[in-house]
């Protein structure tokens, strides 16, 4: 992209120009997401975590299919885009071939724990020394807002038009809590981005997750709650309130497992 266009991009998101001096972000990243979407905020948190740990040139990123897959294009890293849900399988092979790199996936909740539940559980079972970052917006965003594995009870989606009914669709899956039950997992946490403070905490979770991989302890996992105003049919501000009042009571934030060695 030319410098001129870059200037326009910077102006369009005034208030956060510092992002564009960070080499992690491709110039086009912000064009690809809906207004109020927090997936690019995940990109920023991941990029800052890599930057602050000084491991960017040593990292290989594995993407996904879905909104999280769009995010991968913004990173100035070696990266591989796998089939839907298969990120942990692909990352497994890469990490075993290059054990001295940082290998991480960024996946949506559908990619990670619906179609990708097998690869996810497989990686945790084998205690793969990779980091899995799951972006949880409680629906399938890219395809138009269908029921996801994390859709909360009563939440309306295009394939649960009356709201998620436990008698029909069961209950939302708690991925961070599941990950914490695996012996081979070093770290599992759930964060959000709905306030500046929660952003900082979540970035801390990501850094800890990368650190556990650097220390070769076990699999590390971070689930990040993000707003999806388009498919939630809310304004961006209403979406942050919805996270606070409806989603966090279902998906509590915090660290569910954090160990520095596995005996």
């Amino acid at each position, binding site marked *: 992209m030319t410098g001129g266009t870059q200037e326009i991009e910077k102006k369009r998101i005034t208030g956060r120009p510092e992002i564009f001096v960070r080499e992690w972000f491709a110039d086009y990243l912000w064009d690809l997401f809906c207004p109020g979407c927090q997936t690019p905020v995940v990109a920023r948190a991941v990029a800052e975590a890599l930057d602050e740990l000084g491991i960017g040139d040593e990292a290989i990123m594995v993407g996904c299919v879905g909104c999280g897959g769009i995010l991968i294009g913004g990173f100035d890293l*070696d990266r591989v*885009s*796998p*089939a839907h849900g298969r990120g942990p399988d*692909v990352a*497994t*092979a890469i990490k075993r*071939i290059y054990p001295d790199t940082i290998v991480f996936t960024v996946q949506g909740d559908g990619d990670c724990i619906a179609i990708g539940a097998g*690869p996810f559980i497989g990686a945790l079972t084998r205690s793969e020394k990779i980091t899995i970052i799951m972006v949880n917006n409680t629906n399938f965003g890219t395809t138009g807002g269908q029921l996801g594995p994390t859709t909360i009870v009563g939440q309306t989606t295009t394939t649960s038009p009356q709201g998620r009914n436990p008698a029909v669709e069961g209950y939302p899956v708690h991925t961070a809590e599941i990950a914490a039950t695996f012996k081979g997992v070093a770290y599992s946490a759930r964060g959000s981005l709905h306030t500046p403070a929660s952003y900082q905490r979540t970035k801390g979770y990501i850094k800890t997750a990368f650190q556990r991989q650097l220390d070769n302890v076990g699999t590390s996992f971070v689930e990040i709650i993000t707003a999806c105003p388009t498919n939630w049919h809310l304004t961006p501000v209403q979406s942050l309130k919805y996270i606070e009042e409806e989603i966090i009571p279902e998906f509590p934030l915090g660290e569910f497992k954090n160990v520095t060695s596995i005996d």
Partner: protein
Amino acid sequence: MAQKILAEGNEAIGWGALTAGCHCFFGYPITPQNEVIEFLARELPARGGIFLQSQCENATINMLFGAAACGVRAMTSTSSPGWGLMQEGMSNLAAARFPCVVVLVQRVGPGVQRLTHSQQDYYSATKGGGGGGYKCIVLAPASVQETHDLMQLAFYLADKYRHPVIVLSDGLMGHVTEPLELKKLEFGPLPEKDWAVARKGKHPDGKHVALGASYNPLKGESFVSYLEDMRNSYKAIEANDVRYKEYRTEDAKLVLVAYGYCARTAEEAVDMAREEGLKVGLLRPITLWPFPSKPLKALADKGCQFLVVEDSMGQMVDDVKIAVEGKAEVHLADASFRHMTSEDGMIMPSRVLEEIRRLQ
């Protein structure tokens, strides 16, 4: 002189992979290929390689995707039901143009059926069984020695064309025991794998590498330019790497066409027919894609008839019909020619000979 041992076909797959310098193997147990994963679980880590048993074939093919993205020599093996699970991954490997080797030891299909030999996966191997629009190079060994040798060729062709290669065996070829000479084959120089991921800090130009199954507009590619590149690559494969063997075809009036274990059956049937003075030969495709259409057409132009011997209800026979362009009669000895009607039956030379006599 190279070491000579007795080995079964599935072990020859492993020996061939080791000789070719295979670095990674990903597998999941399934009959009748379990000897492959057991051999490599034992032998590959001992040589500094990576062996990993996955949670399913869907995982193995995607682990292969990750390994191939790193540019190392990597493979998996499976049998027909697992092959079905791998199809999305095969399509992505071909779309991403990742070099790798997939061994398919065919068993009785369709569906789960039984555990023994069959040749029911010809279509899905040669025509692209996943999301459409791609083809894979398919090599079909007909002996233990050839299994070993074609494994080495498979890794070479994969790297030469940056493309997945299938080695198509079956339950019989996998379990027959024959002498095997462990010789390393030389095929010539290969292009550098400067396209592979390594991590940004490792690339000489300091630029990152981004790989995936779709075209990249940031590299100036369009969907059509991507398809054109793929077509040109396929044309190069078809121009340079069609492989087949002709046997006693010089004066043949009837030419048998068969691959894998059925080629062994057909070869013996040819010898039996020749003893009776019948002018019969064999054309054995070694590459099922690219298919040896030109030599078949040349035989058709000479006035030959054809008898396809294959242990399915007729799949390769379609490619033979396309090849001869209506210039010759094409007959079929299929799975109904088995000496037993059970899954244990095989097509025997004597039964093929009966059909040869009938066609005279």
